């Protein structure tokens, strides 16, 4: 079965650079969630989209922005990168925004900021 695809899987950037992470949800899933997992930490919710509209926002820095496109894929744009942004970034998708729907997670993008 198709799973959530994230690209790239690994990314190395310098401080103050920008990064773009991409997420391709499972086909026919219209809801996307982004989470950030720091080293040894639990995943923290960043932002979510339902039907291409932002549905909720968590502890996402102002330096970050995201959007969901017409084909339902989503991109997380990160600017002025800081060392503390080094983390595993997960995208998850679900069939709808219903809270009973299971969120299916991608393998993550590991971002390292040097």
């Amino acid at each position, binding site marked *: 079965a198709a799973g959530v695809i994230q690209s790239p899987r690994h990314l190395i950037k310098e401080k103050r650079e920008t990064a773009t992470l991409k997420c391709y949800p499972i086909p026919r899933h219209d809801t996307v969630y982004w989470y950030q997992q720091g080293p040894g930490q639990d995943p923290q*919710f960043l932002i979510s989209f339902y039907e291409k509209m932002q549905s909720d926002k968590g502890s996402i820095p102002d330096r970050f922005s995201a959007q969901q496109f017409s084909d339902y894929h989503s991109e997380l744009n990160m600017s002025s990168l800081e060392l503390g942004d080094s983390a595993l970034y997960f995208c998850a998708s679900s069939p709808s925004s219903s809270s009973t729907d299971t969120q299916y997670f991608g*393998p993550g993008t590991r971002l390292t900021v040097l």
Partner: protein
Amino acid sequence: AQSVTQLDSQVPVFEEAPVELRCNYSSSVSVYLFWYVQYPNQGLQLLLKYLSGSTLVESINGFEAEFNKSQTSFHLRKPSVHISDTAEYFCAVRKPSSNTGKLIFGQGTTLQVKP
């Protein structure tokens, strides 16, 4: 606001022994409860979830969890673990009937199964 506490950061156990991973939550409203497993260098996979109905829920690989409303707990158990169960386990909650399905995770418990 909701929060999740996993009481043990690491649980070492020998193969074929029983295990319990503890999870307590705090919420002023009812919540849905989840257990996710994360194998090394992989994403999170849903292990089991409690939405309503029977308070005992089971996964296909022998894990079970029981929702206890009075104790606000959702502990995960397995009667006999395998080496392949070695992984990070996250308990999570989610508010029902909201327009956002964000998950709030606990700190995670590392299950280390020894031969």
